[in-house]
């Protein structure tokens, strides 16, 4: 389905040949001496040098003796040792490192001594102790004895840069890795060097906080360079690249030592990028997560959510044994066989498979796996629904969705293999974003776009320019939510935008929110055809793309096959060795919930679905439906209504595969061995009890089947949608169009139990344009927004340059749970009143 690496370009590269420590090495022109030395296995100590950051030459630890040819070609030595991390290799250069040159060795020892003069040497209390480049290199390249006996410089410590990131200036060696990362990679410049000489320090500007623009974090935070409170989604990376213990995280502060930890590679479960992570655990408990190096996906960077949000799976409400509702109406712990038997009994009756007269009255089962599952789990859920329960009523899209979206996904995304990649995104001359906020909804996607800042034109179809889009210097195509289709249709040939998208390699990025805008996805397909730009669909949740590949949508079978196509159904049925697949059209998530609430379904199988994420009333549906089986990691709200709760493993305790938005398979092995089992294994048990062998007990079983099925053939695919944009309807005068998306750090279920991370999330504010605010009469800087439900959301207002007649709210930030409180999706009309 996918390849594992981007194809390398084979262009002729100009090379130079130099000699390092007597070894000749040929490297591409422009290579730094320190990299050339790495290629021949010569280690030069360094602190400031980082392959993904611009050279700085800040720490001077990498001094080497260099001799280079002058104009006449005579090789002449530089009078002093040179920093190998900033000097490019030249033809005929002779480099002598500390291994062969006493001068270089002495210079390095001198630099190390200077660096250690003001270093507190408090390694026993420092979090970096044991994995500290300064500690290691002081031992390997420093003097054995210290000559410094005077008083060291002291600073107040630790300084909280945010609720998560702590700064200890005494330990800092002024390498500027953190400041360079913040400026070059994340675009959230927040700390910089201050003062000179011995008092030089990393610090923050101490001016009055400038005008509040609504991007203030919840927790404590230092001010950034502009004087605003520092708020970044990527600040955790600075902790990882800090070569000393100057930057540490509050969550991992004093928690353990590197030798306590068992490391396991993994894939982040937080977004659809599939970022490579490293999970460090001790005695079965995850203590921290770090970014792993995967050049084709996340390079060496991950978001703070990927890094810090892992506490959710070890909270006190973690399920370890099955629960079955007893005669007394309460849930009781039960054995697996008893719970499986009870679940099978209920589902058999609901699916009409008891073989008795009651079968005729059975109304069927709906399956809601949720969007956070692995490819294997998604495959098991859909096979379970179609074979064991005989229904197409399965939908992982517990979010904004539509039939048009399903047609779009079936036609243009599912089973298409590796499409637009991260590297395509980076190289694209122009990128159009629609229904997608790169920083809030994309995570590391933002970092890749930011990497091409200055060479790439970014256009965004949005109601206003968010801070993430601002940092990309994006051009705003101001659009009221719901009118994206019209905005995309307006990009006619000959316009500047169309010309930009007509360039070779241009990409149109579509977010999952576009499903809520009628006609927008159809229009995007037309636009792509018109301009020749490539399409990328980037959902938020990690399991969304995998669910498409596995066919866990009502109208899709594995490999992007159309469930409505008889030949596709037959192909899958043959592969599975069953007589046939259900022919009735499946219902989508909203329809399943509505049917359950109207008692048109007898049972629901629910995976990782949070009722408060849905505009549809899942609680009512769960309450009214006769029988509920829940497969969950934690005892959630769904368990209150469930008849049987089966505990399943969180991603760190099971093997599996996430398919990221590129279509790249991101397989991961078990990080922590426990007796928790995956959803697909639990469903395999359940199906056996129902008398069906799904053969989905192990990851390899599922992957064999997926490989055998392959992608859809010609004629088995869904037809592309051709919907038209809906006419905008005029609402009442105090009604505004709702714009909303999930901020990266908010109150999502996978961010529970991590207060330090939550403190870096942004405070909830309502955004209005000046004209709109005046029209509705905002008093005391507060508005009350009410939707279809009785409850309403009251938030402080921030006046933003944006489309008139629109109110923006964060989707699930503290005090602003839009889906639950208002019961409407973005694009709907809400009533907004100013103040009280």
């Amino acid at each position, binding site marked *: 389905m996918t390849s594992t690496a981007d194809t390398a370009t084979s262009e002729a590269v100009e090379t130079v040949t130099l000699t390092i420590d007597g070894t000749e090495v040929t490297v591409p022109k422009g290579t730094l001496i320190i990299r050339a030395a790495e290629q021949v296995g010569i280690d030069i100590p360094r602190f400031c040098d980082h392959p993904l950051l611009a050279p700085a030459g800040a720490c001077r630890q990498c001094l080497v003796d260099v001799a280079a040819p002058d104009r006449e070609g005579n090789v002449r030595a530089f009078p002093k040792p040179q920093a190998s991390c900033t000097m490019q290799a030249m033809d005929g250069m002779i480099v002598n490192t500390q291994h062969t040159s006493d001068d270089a060795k002495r210079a390095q020892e001198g630099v190390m001594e200077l660096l250690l003069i003001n270093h507190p040497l*408090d*390694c*026993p*209390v420092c979090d970096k*102790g*044991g994995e500290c480049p300064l500690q290691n290199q002081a031992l390997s390249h420093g003097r054995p004895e210290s000559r410094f006996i005077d008083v060291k410089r*002291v600073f107040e*410590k*630790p300084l909280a840069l945010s609720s998560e990131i702590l700064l200890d200036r005494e330990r800092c060696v002024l390498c500027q890795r953190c400041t360079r990362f913040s400026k070059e990679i994340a675009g959230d410049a927040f700390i910089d060097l201050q003062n000179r000489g011995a008092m030089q320090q990393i610090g923050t500007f101490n001016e009055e906080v400038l005008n509040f623009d609504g991007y203030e974090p919840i927790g404590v935070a230092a001010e950034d360079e502009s004087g605003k409170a520092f708020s970044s989604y990527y600040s955790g990376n600075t902790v990882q690249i800090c070569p000393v213990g100057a930057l540490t995280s509050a969550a991992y*502060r*004093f*928690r*353990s*030592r590197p*030798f*306590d930890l068992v490391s396991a590679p993994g894939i982040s479960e937080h977004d659809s990028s599939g970022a490579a992570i490293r999970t460090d655990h001790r005695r079965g408990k995850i203590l921290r997560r770090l970014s792993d190096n995967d050049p084709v996906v996340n390079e060496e960077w991950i978001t703070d959510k990927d890094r810090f949000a892992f506490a959710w799976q070890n909270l006190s409400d973690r399920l370890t044994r099955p629960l079955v509702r007893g005669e007394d109406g309460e849930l009781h712990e039960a054995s697996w066989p008893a719970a499986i038997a009870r679940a099978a009994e209920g589902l058999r009756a609901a699916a009409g498979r008891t073989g008795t007269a009651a079968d005729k009255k059975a109304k069927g089962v709906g399956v809601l796996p949720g969007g956070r599952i692995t490819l294997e789990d998604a495959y098991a859920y859909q096979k379970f629904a179609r074979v064991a329960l005989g229904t197409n009523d399965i939908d992982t899209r517990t979010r904004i969705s539509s039939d048009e979206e399903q047609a779009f996904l079936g036609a243009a995304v599912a089973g298409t293999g590796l499409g637009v990649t991260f590297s395509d995104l980076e190289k694209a001359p122009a990128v159009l974003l629609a229904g997608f906020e790169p920083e809030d909804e994309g995570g590391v996607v933002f970092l890749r776009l930011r990497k091409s800042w200055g060479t790439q034109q970014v256009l965004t179809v949005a109601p206003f320019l968010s801070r993430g889009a601002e940092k990309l210097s994006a051009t705003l195509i101001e659009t009221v939510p719901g009118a994206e289709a019209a905005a995309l249709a307006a990009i006619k040939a000959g316009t500047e935008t169309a010309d930009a998208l007509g360039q070779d390699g241009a990409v149109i990025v579509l977010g999952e929110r576009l499903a809520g805008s009628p006609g927008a996805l159809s229009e995007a397909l037309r636009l792509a055809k018109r301009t020749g730009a490539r399409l990328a669909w980037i959902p938020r949740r990690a399991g969304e793309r995998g669910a498409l590949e596995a066919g866990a949508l009502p109208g899709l079978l594995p490999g992007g096959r159309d469930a409505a196509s008889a030949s596709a159904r037959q192909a899958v049925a043959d592969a599975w060795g069953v007589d046939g697949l259900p022919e009735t059209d499946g219902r989508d998530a909203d329809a399943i919930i509505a049917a359950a609430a109207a008692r048109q379904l007898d049972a629901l199988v629910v995976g990782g679905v949070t009722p408060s994420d849905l505009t549809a009333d899942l609680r009512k549906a769960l309450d009214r439906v006769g029988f509920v089986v829940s497969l969950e990691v934690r005892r959630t709200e769904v368990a209150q209504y469930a008849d049987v709760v089966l505990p399943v493993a969180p991603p760190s305790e099971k093997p599996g595969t996430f398919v990221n938005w590129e279509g790249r398979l991101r397989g991961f092995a078990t990080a922590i061995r426990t007796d928790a089992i995956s959803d697909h294994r639990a469903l395999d048990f359940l199906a056996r009890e129902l008398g069906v062998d799904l053969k989905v007990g192990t990851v390899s079983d599922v992957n064999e089947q997926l490989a055998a099925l392959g992608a859809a053939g010609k004629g088995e695919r869904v037809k592309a949608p051709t919907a038209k944009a809906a006419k905008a309807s005029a609402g009442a005068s105090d009604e505004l169009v709702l714009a909303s998306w999930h901020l990266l750090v908010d109150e999502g279920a996978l961010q529970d139990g991590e207060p330090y991370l939550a403190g870096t999330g942004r405070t909830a504010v309502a955004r209005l344009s000046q004209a709109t605010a005046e029209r509705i009469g905002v008093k005391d800087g507060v508005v009350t927004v009410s939707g279809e439900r009785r409850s309403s959301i009251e938030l402080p207002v921030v006046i933003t340059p944006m489309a008139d007649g629109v109110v923006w709210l964060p989707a699930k930030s503290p005090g602003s749970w839009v889906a639950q409180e208002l019961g409407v999706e973005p694009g709907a009309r809400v009533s907004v009143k100013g103040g009280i």
Partner: protein
Amino acid sequence: MSESDDVWKVNRERDGEAQRFESNFPQYGPVGRAFAPVAGFGVTLRNFFRPTVTEQYPDKKTPAMPRYHGRHQLNRYADGLEKCIGCELCAWACPADAIYVEADSNTEDKQYSPGERYGRVYQINYLRCIFCGLCIEACPTRALTMTNEYELAGPTREGLIYEKQDLLAPLEDGMLQAPHPMVPGTVDDDYYKGDVTKVVKEQTEWVREHRPEDPTLPENQKQEAGRG
């Protein structure tokens, strides 16, 4: 040259004569052979007149040598703050993996040791400990030392995993039970250098305010003494 050396010499000489197989035991003359059956009593008789080496343990307990490697102890500074900073270097040094440490942050309300960090969990598993003393050498604050206590047996495995409260040194006279703030105006370095020698008024007052019932407060100690 002793008697047994003689024997070996004899053996070495005989090695060259492979065809002769004689006993390796020394051969005695006729008198020796006559007394041989009761010769063993000589050992017994000789020991009647030697000093007794048997120790009457556990009726009578002899102190061990001063540097005997016994049970560990987590020491305190003169004001009662703990010396342990939870750095885990002892656990790192331990060849038997007998030590388990979890550190935590000192806060204003709960200051257990000078500086930012203290050992929240400290366990030594005496089923594993081999009393090598490498942990003592590793300790950067001299928090961990070994006592002369050697009575480390028990009926359960759990009981032989000593927790922090089992290992902490008892409070000496004038010490104040942690947590309480550091001596005002000092930093952790002053503690390491030994500049803090006693509890100061501010610390006593802090404890009086937060834990008026604390038995290590001077007034409570007097009461105890009065009662006693």
